[in-house]
């Protein structure tokens, strides 16, 4: 404790502290701006960079905008299914990345997961568009969901993998010694331990899918349009004030979900700590 105090007193510590505060201000300025401007009156029914007064009008307008509402509905449905698939497949992937008995399979699975993270989304998106075009699958909600799952799966897999890495292998061995088969061990020993990581992974998958813009840009149609794609499209014609209202509302919702994910993850971490120091 006293060392930290000392560090703060050093000129270098103050410099770094100032830099940190600047970074935080930089990171939060746009978020604060979008929230504040969602209440901006604007002028002539347009958003302006000048703040002209407070109103709740845009929230009501956004609520009544049917295209916007349909986009939100599509986003909610698509990210729900994507998160569900990512939770099931990503958890399985995250588990087998660490625990599959064959080393080559393990490294293949992690290779695949890291590949998912390093291929730019633009490339993934156009590849999927080409894939659907060549295989003559018409674009629909299902193709959109299938297209945004891989990234969500990778995110969930990495979170669950981190959980598996802290899981003591001896629990599994003990369970096997006591006569449980592999499924029983998975169901009654491993899954309860991983539940918080799986929960956090599911929420992150939902958030990532909901926010997905680049891949979705290529897979949406006028009939199946997600919220980010709709907002992105409408921005090209100058920001409509309703965009900020809708965006701010969604952001509060997302932040609440993130808070929940963080809480779950913390609970998991605490349990690990207890397990380790008992």
């Amino acid at each position: 404790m006293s060392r930290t105090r000392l560090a703060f007193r050093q000129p270098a510590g103050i410099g770094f502290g100032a830099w940190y505060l600047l970074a935080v201000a930089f990171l939060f300025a746009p978020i604060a701006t979008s929230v504040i401007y969602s209440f901006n009156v604007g002028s002539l029914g347009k958003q302006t960079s000048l703040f002209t007064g407070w109103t709740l009008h845009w929230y009501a307008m956004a609520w009544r905008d049917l295209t916007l509402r349909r986009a939100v509905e599509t986003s909610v449905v698509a990210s729900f299914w994507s998160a569900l698939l990512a939770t099931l497949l990503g958890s399985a992937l995250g588990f087998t990345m660490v625990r599959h008995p064959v080393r080559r399979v393990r490294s293949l699975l992690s290779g695949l997961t890291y590949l998912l993270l390093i291929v730019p989304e633009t490339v993934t998106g156009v590849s999927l568009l080409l894939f659907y075009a060549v295989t003559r699958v018409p674009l629909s909600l299902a193709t959109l969901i299938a297209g945004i799952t891989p990234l969500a799966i990778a995110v969930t897999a990495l979170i669950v993998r981190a959980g598996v890495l802290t899981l003591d292998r001896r629990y599994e061995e003990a369970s096997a010694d006591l006569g449980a088969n592999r499924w029983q061990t998975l169901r009654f020993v491993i899954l309860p331990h991983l539940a918080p990581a799986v929960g956090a992974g599911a929420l992150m998958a939902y958030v990532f899918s909901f926010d997905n813009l680049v891949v979705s840009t290529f897979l949406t149609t006028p009939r199946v349009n997600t919220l980010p794609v709709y907002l992105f499209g409408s921005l090209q014609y100058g920001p409509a004030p309703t965009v900020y209202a809708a965006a701010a509302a969604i952001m509060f919702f997302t932040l609440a979900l993130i808070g929940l994910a963080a809480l779950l993850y913390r609970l998991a971490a605490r349990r690990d700590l207890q397990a380790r120091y008992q």
Partner: protein
Amino acid sequence: MRGVTPTARTPARQRIAVPTSDALLAGIPAAWLFVFFVAPLAFTVFFSFGHSTFGGIAPGFTFDNYRAALSGFYAQSFLRTLRFAFAGSALCLLAAFPTAYFIARHAGRWRAAALALVLVPYFTSFLIRVMSWQILLARGSAVETLLNFLHLHSGPLDVLDTQTAVFIGIVYAYLPIAIVPLYVVLARIPATLVEASRDLGASPWQTFLFLTLPLARPGVATAALLTAVPMLGELVVPTLLGGDKGVLIGRAISSQYIESQNYALGSAMAVLVMIAVGVVVALLARLTRGFMEVAP
């Protein structure tokens, strides 16, 4: 690629009994990712050698698409993208390092909270965060007033729709993801090592150059990777903040698919981006002997 689907196939030498459960748990996600991720990428590589037909694409074996993608306008935008990713990633690292350093070394018991605070924005909508810069950087905005007040700038702000705006947006968008790996390596450096270096007479600068920086290398590599790779395919930030000038390759690829419907050329350009990503990964891996593993 071949080994992805047959999950439980072991070489004859090391015959390991794979429980059905593990085979299924590995096989199902692998199969799903194979269909919706690996196969589309393979299609892109395959058709990058094909021809675009009217509203479609036909297989073939020609390098014409690559020739087109590597000449004139597209070559320029490809080079511009490489420079952009390099500069953007460097700027991100420069901004992230002191921030991560502060969290790891000076935040004391507020470490976790300090880290969480810089991470929160990363998880809010990417689009909203970027489009807010349109308001912040516009003429007559709060930023203009503030800069004028601090005498850092005088007169109206003419930043929107320029490269500067794109760099602000890009550093903004990827700063949190650069901070995390740097924080992890810096936090791992034992305080005793730093003290020893000081006791042995090293100046703070010497300690930083010869102790902290070398030990932080894997984190630097990971941060560079996590920022440079998405920048190579960046589509949203330049579109929203950069105006029409200086088209980057992400935008060029996207317009081949959405506007020109020239899938073959778009595929060749996408393959070039993947090659660039591969080179970046290989270079960084070489420079730092390995990456750190960080969850997203």
